[in-house]
């Protein structure tokens, strides 16, 4: 609770510290505009055209339905991989055999490109929700799993001894030692898995679904509507930036303030 209040209290300062990033984004937009002057509207529409397209998109109900669907799929897939990855990783870390055995499997899972999973999922599940979510889960699960595994492998015997030497209860040990330690490994892995889920969900939709942002992107491509395509991409990036910098970053700053 104290932590939450501190996050809210520090939030304006955090936003104020964002001027540097805003400046670099504006510089990027300027370069984009230069590109537009060189290559023309078909190849690279002007930023202004793209932004008015974004505005138009948000006023059409079909787009909002698609956006909601994509977010829903992404979050659902993320939630499943988070739950499975965290639980399996924590349990796996407690047993040496399990962690040794899971290593090569995780390497294989990480090594398989998501696009290959999409193809397989399309064969197994056909077109639609299941394929998209399966791909999201398979691609982001290993990230969470490895984080949880490392977290539970590295609980320090020395700190644990220290807690025992004061005869502290299991509950206090969990709250003051296990939880903060595990969380410091889990949280970053959750953040990267969330980013991964968001990218994968769009790719999977583009190839294997008739609805969602990814599918709209496929339509825009086939009709050569470059400004719509760029608008969709901008929306995707916008969602990611919002979640990472506005929602997660302040939390991360607060919960990891003890780190070097």
């Amino acid at each position, binding site marked *: 609770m104290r932590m939450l209040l501190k996050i809210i209290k520090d939030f304006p300062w955090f936003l104020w510290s964002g001027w540097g990033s805003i400046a670099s984004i504006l510089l990027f937009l300027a370069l984009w505009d230069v590109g537009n002057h060189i290559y023309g509207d078909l190849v690279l529409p002007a930023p202004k055209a793209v932004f008015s397209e974004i505005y138009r998109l948000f006023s059409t109900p079909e787009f909002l339905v698609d956006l909601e669907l994509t977010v829903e799929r992404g979050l659902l897939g993320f939630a499943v991989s988070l739950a499975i990855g965290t639980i399996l990783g924590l349990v796996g870390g407690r047993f040496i055999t399990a962690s040794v055995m899971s290593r090569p499997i995780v390497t294989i899972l990480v090594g398989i490109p998501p696009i290959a999973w999409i193809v397989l999922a399309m064969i197994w599940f056909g077109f639609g929700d299941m394929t998209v979510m399966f791909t999201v889960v398979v691609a982001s699960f290993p990230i969470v799993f490895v984080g949880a595994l490392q977290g539970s492998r590295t609980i320090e015997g*020395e*700190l644990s*001894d*220290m807690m*025992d*030497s*004061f005869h*502290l*209860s299991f509950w*206090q040990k969990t709250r*003051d*030692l296990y939880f*903060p*330690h595990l969380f*410091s490994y889990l949280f970053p892995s959750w953040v990267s898995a969330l980013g991964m889920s968001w990218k994968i969900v769009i790719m999977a939709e583009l190839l294997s679904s008739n609805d969602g942002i990814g599918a709209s992107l496929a339509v825009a491509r086939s009709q050569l509507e470059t400004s719509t395509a760029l608008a969709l991409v901008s929306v995707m990036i916008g969602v990611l930036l919002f979640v990472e910098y506005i929602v997660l970053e302040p939390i991360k700053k607060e919960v990891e*303030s*003890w*780190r*070097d």
Partner: protein
Amino acid sequence: MARLEVSELNFYFGFTQILNEISFELNKNEIVSIVGPSGGGKTTLLKLCGGLLDVTEGTIANSFKSSAFAFQDARLLPWKTTIENIMLPIVSKYGYKEAYSMACDMALKFGLEEKDFEKYPKDLSGGMRQRVNFARALVTKPELLFLDEPFSALDIGLKRELQDFVLQNSISEGMAVLFITHDIMEAIRLSDRILLLKSDPGEVIKTYEIAQPKSLRDDEFVFEQTRKFLNDKDILEIFEIKAR
């Protein structure tokens, strides 16, 4: 009277014998040092006495009501501030507010400043971390304190300061201290009794009593005694010192 009594203690890790037939006792008000070379099973002995390892052969009878540890490395929780670390052992007993003020008092007593209270261990110097370590151990007002070479990485000024704290506490509160060290001078300054532990396996080969009251031991006395110890045949042997 409260006491710690170790008798005929043996301990093995696998097939390797670590401790062999250790017997000694520690009473209220007393400071007993265990001196020996590194890797001689001293820490294992301390862990057994503190209940961090299970006794398999022999007995350890501990009738002290409370005990605390100060470790060689401070072992602070990196995600807790100075004060939160100090209040760790007492927070569930006294509640947050009370424990907080007790921890603040103890921190000030150990020479920490108010501006350090909300710092995380990463922002503290090694010496300050060790102060926190001691404050955390003594905030519990233990009847028995275990010290695992806590002075070994400190500069001489801080070493003396923290040793004086332990000494004061032992004299005024009657706290018993079981002290592990490889520094003979330190042991002479603080202890009523010194047990000499040889390694492979750990065995007490000699016990020295120091009769001089602890408060009357000045540097002169400590140096003189240390010189005597360094001429002792057993000490030369277990520390593998070549006589000149």
